[in-house]
């Protein structure tokens, strides 16, 4: 057949040219990253998540490390009450003083100054620009710049996550002043930063190539790798095939069901990082009356054998969790009520709540209504689909009828945001700052927040808000622990397991640590080195 002949000829020609299609081995010259999507923009304030590529180019005043600690980056230190850089004012507001590291310049040589800090705040609060989030910035009344390295942020109220305010970076004033930032394609596609890399080329639909900068501020020996190529390969199978053929070297956050396949690739090490996210079943109390009864919610969790799910379906990759704040966070407490697998107890709780199988069809009823609901979850996640099936069977064992409906990723966001679902299996990526308000406060139901359990408890609401308005970390933790205990007691949702991030990394790469937050694995890329 003619076509096979052609392919054979093409293959032989290529092979004889001495450069086969299999990519070069990873070296300090070039690291190739297989990336699941193309970013919309590299402007960190416009994009929808902190992207890995930006992390290599743009630096903030602080960053979260692999233990989720907030560490200074462009700032000389993290402002705290102890070092007197955070002052609580009598009028209920607060002042935060940022000291910049001296001698840091943008990649074009212009020094980074406090004027850039002020410009960033003003640009984000300017109604003509559309950043994705103005969180925190909208609480800033004014910025003073007493000298080129000092910026004093005057907040209208106490804002607990102030230390993360400039994590996304700064806008270079000399480039963006007076411009329409939404349309500043030169900046948005190749932003001027201070990081170890700059954008050398962005080929739409194909790749972004980063190149090391000659005079990185940490020392000219950093970074060790000369070029990083991010190739956009949306298809997971293709991405993993490329990893096998050596056409890409690193794949961050690959799906769990590929774990065994990837772990078997020679020269590739799978890194596991405990994530700051948790998989759970949201119970929409507004839609399903039965969910308003705490007995029913507890019964549902007792009915689920989470240990077996974790070991059998999740291959031991994700530990069972009991709440919204994960062990990786400083605010985590294990001292909460837990609900181990106990089908008999689940049945007893349902009985006492008045749910009995009157007509003998295996499904419990109360006031003539069967205990029945539909669980929605995102299509295309093999693991999630399997977990949904297990939940279905285990609920059925205790007389609860749950249907499963798979929905595409964008549609599902629309559904939950309008509360148009009974129950949902999904995860929340939690903010690096441990905040519960957005998810559990009574006044944070959509459209005002993400309390999509439609859960109302005055004690939880009070504790969550109090924690948001406390700067002292010890006191904050005390409040957050109480809130976690109260939430575990009332169980508005069914926590299942903590997310573990899986990154496939060349075995010869040193310095890679992973990162639990959406800062991403490139947070310390300047230390990466092939040896």
């Amino acid at each position, binding site marked *: 057949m003619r*076509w096979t002949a*052609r*392919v054979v000829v*093409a*293959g*032989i020609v*290529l*092979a004889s*040219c001495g450069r*086969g*299609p*299999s990519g070069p081995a990873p070296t300090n010259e070039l690291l190739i990253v297989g990336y699941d*999507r*193309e970013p*919309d*923009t590299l402007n960190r304030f*416009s994009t*929808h*998540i902190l992207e890995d590529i930006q992390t290599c180019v743009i630096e903030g005043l602080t960053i979260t490390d692999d233990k989720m600690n907030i560490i200074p980056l462009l700032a000389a230190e993290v402002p705290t009450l102890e070092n007197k850089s955070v002052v609580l004012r009598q009028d209920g507001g607060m002042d935060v003083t940022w000291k910049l590291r001296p001698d840091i310049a943008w990649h074009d040589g212009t020094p980074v100054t406090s004027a850039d800090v002020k410009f960033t705040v003003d640009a984000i609060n300017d109604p003509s620009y*559309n*950043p*994705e*989030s*103005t*969180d925190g910035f*909208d609480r800033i009344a004014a910025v003073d710049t007493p000298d080129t390295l000092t910026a004093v942020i005057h907040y209208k109220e106490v804002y607990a996550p102030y230390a993360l305010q400039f994590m996304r970076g700064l806008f270079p004033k000399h480039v963006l002043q007076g411009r329409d930032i*939404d*349309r500043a*394609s030169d900046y*948005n596609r190749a932003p001027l930063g201070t990081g170890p890399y700059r954008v050398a080329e962005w*080929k739409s*639909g*194909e*790749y972004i190539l980063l190149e090391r900068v000659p005079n990185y501020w940490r020392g000219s020996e950093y970074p060790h790798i000369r070029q990083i190529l991010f*190739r*956009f*390969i*949306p*298809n997971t*199978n*293709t991405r993993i*095939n490329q990893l*096998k*053929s050596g*056409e890409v070297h690193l794949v961050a956050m690959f799906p769990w069901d590929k774990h065994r396949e990837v772990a078997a690739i020679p020269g590739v090490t799978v890194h596991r990082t405990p994530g700051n996210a948790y998989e759970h079943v949201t119970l929409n109390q507004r839609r399903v009356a039965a969910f308003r009864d705490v007995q029913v919610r507890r019964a549902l969790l007792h009915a689920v054998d989470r240990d077996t799910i974790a070991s059998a379906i999740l291959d031991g990759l994700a530990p069972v969790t009991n709440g919204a704040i994960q062990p990786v966070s400083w605010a985590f407490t294990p001292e909460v009520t837990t609900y181990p697998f106990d089908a008999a107890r689940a049945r007893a709780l349902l009985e006492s709540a008045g749910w009995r199988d009157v007509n003998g069809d295996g499904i419990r009823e109360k006031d003539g209504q069967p205990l029945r609901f539909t669980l929605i979850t995102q299509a295309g996640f093999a693991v999630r689909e399997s977990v949904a099936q297990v939940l279905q069977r285990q609920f059925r064992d205790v007389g609860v009828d749950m249907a499963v409906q798979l929905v595409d*990723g*964008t*549609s599902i*966001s*629309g559904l*939950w*945001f*309008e509360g148009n679902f009974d129950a949902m299996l999904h995860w*929340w*990526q*939690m903010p690096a700052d441990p905040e519960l308000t*957005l998810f559990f406060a009574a006044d944070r139901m*959509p*459209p005002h*927040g993400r309390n999509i359990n439609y859960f109302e408890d005055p004690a939880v609401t009070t504790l969550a808000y109090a924690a948001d308005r406390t700067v002292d970390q010890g006191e904050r933790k005390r409040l957050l622990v109480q809130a976690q205990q109260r939430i575990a007691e009332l169980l508005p949702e069914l926590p299942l397991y903590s997310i573990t991030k899986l990154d496939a990394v060349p075995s010869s790469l040193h310095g890679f640590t992973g990162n639990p937050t959406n800062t991403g694995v490139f947070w310390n890329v300047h230390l990466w080195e092939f040896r």
Partner: protein
Amino acid sequence: MGVPLTRRIAATVPLLFVISAVVFGLLHLVPGGPLAVYLSNPDVRPEDLERLKRALGLDQPVWRQYAQWLGGFLSGDWGFSYSDGRPVVDRVVERLPATLELVAASLVLASLFTVPLGLVAGLARGWPARVAALLSFAGLALPVFWFGLVLQLVFSLGLGWLPSSGRNTPGLEGLADRLAHLVLPATMLAAVHAAAWSRYLRAAVIDTYALPFVAAARARGAGERVVIWRHVLRPALLPVVTIVFLDTALMVAGTVVTESVFAWPGLGSLFTEALARRDYTVLMALLMVASTAVVVCNLIADLVYPLIDPRVRT
């Protein structure tokens, strides 16, 4: 033929209007708009969502959004992408060459498979006909997605002959590199289409073969080769040409699956991204490109008929 042609072009204009209105409405009916992508990000506050909604004009009634889009579109302003803020025209134009390149290559390959397969399946007896039929059925039955992955497994991972995805090796701009990247996606696309087209050709060949003029040609003493090439194949190609051009139009609009499997940077991958983001302006532009391509390819098919079959010349 001139008058009906202009009339047909004129008739397509209202058709395009109707299509655009229907699709615009449908897109807005699908749950989850351009802002859905922000919802799972804890940093994006409800207040931010309200602000972005107003800024993007998504708080307006759908008919007004459509009127605004249509006004802009007609005056040549296709608007800005919701996801990256760049002009929609730029986003579409930069993806067009990759798609055209892939479509052209697979058209050539597919034609090379179609004619022999169709002829053999239609005219031969015994095992050659059965093998030809088997091949086209196999081509039709293969899940495209799976076939692409098998090509990758065999030729990239197994034999290491060809790159598994992408359009070129970054940093290398040579023709050989380009061609090597083109082989697998073009083969995947060609195989699927050749299978379908050869089935049409087979049916047409069988029908034509039974017609009196074929017998007449043979009676005049024409050799079997001449009979098949001039009297059977040419008229039999007519229905196939229509299908080929329609398929081409759809391919130009984006070969979604192929581009996804091979990370090919064309309109298909742009469509997938835009759909996931509900990037309405980009989706509408792609849709209009697709509709126009269908119309244009239909017209070209009409123009090509007389070249193939003298009976259509008027």
